[in-house]
């Protein structure tokens, strides 16, 4: 057996087989490795791409990263249809099966505890954007007549921007309070880079919520109800995701 082992997730044993057409990372269909009553979902990956140095290099290549992230997500997504997977961080690679087994044994208790906590739960992502230029009217219509005029216009612009961010911040804080109260847990992600998201407006909230699958519909309705509450705010919902953001120990 050659090659390294890329591990996607750890799960409790699941009865259903994985979809046969599933292509994993590096095009290697994922297989299961059972140890001590837990299942690791694994692909065999070539050293030329996944050994430390090449992997590090590849991770700086957006196309490679995209392809690998999508393949990883494809496997996790397939797992969510048959079980509640505990996803591992992208790029978790072992030398061989025995390395995977040693890891499973070392982390067995953690894994069981986290799997219990996440059982039947999904993650929803909620993002709030403040549309970037709702205050067109304060832009100077004509050239300032003097230096003092210019400074006054600048001050007005700055003040109205500040007001807008304050409103956006207050709106996001309140929304987050409402959603956290409904959800079992929440995590804040850093605001997204607009160059990558290609989204318009400034991302003022980027949060993840852990919700029992059974309550998901209610959660989605809760988010939908806040849409259009405040002009200039755009709310985006993503999911359901496997509980990526909640896979670490609780803080």
């Amino acid at each position: 057996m050659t090659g390294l082992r890329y591990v996607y997730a750890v799960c409790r044993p699941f009865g259903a087989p994985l979809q046969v057409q599933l292509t994993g990372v590096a095009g290697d269909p994922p297989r299961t490795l059972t140890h001590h009553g837990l299942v690791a979902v694994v692909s065999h990956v070539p050293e030329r791409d996944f050994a430390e140095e090449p992997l590090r290099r590849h991770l700086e290549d957006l196309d490679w990263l995209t392809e690998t992230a999508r393949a990883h997500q494809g496997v996790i997504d397939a797992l969510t249809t048959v079980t509640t997977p505990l996803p591992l961080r992208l790029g978790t690679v072992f030398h061989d099966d025995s390395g995977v087994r040693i890891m499973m044994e070392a982390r067995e208790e953690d894994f069981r505890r986290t799997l219990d906590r996440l059982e039947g739960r999904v993650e929803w992502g909620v993002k709030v954007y403040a549309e970037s230029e709702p205050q067109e009217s304060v832009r100077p219509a004509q050239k300032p007549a003097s230096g003092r005029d210019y400074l006054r216009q600048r001050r007005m612009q700055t003040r109205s921007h500040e007001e807008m961010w304050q409103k956006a911040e207050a709106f996001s804080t309140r929304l987050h309070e409402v959603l956290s109260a409904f959800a079992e847990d929440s995590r804040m992600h850093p605001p997204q880079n607009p160059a990558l998201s290609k989204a318009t407006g400034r991302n003022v909230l980027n949060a993840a919520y852990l919700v029992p699958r059974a309550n998901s519909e209610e959660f989605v309705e809760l988010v939908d109800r806040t849409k259009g509450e405040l002009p200039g705010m755009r709310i985006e919902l993503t999911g359901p995701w496997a509980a990526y953001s909640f896979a670490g120990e609780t803080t």
Partner: protein
Amino acid sequence: MTVVERREVALVDLLDRLLAGGVVITGDITLRIADVDLVRIDLNALISSVNAQVPSPFEELL
């Protein structure tokens, strides 16, 4: 039954989760890359090299 329509997952939402979420395994068993905090991958540099022509909409606010 899904509560919302499945859409193509945006890369940026995926990377939020795959690079910052998931269980982190450290130690001698894994290749060292797993020790690296992937969040520190310089995504900004990565992105700006790809999208050099796309200006940030907030530049004028800074």
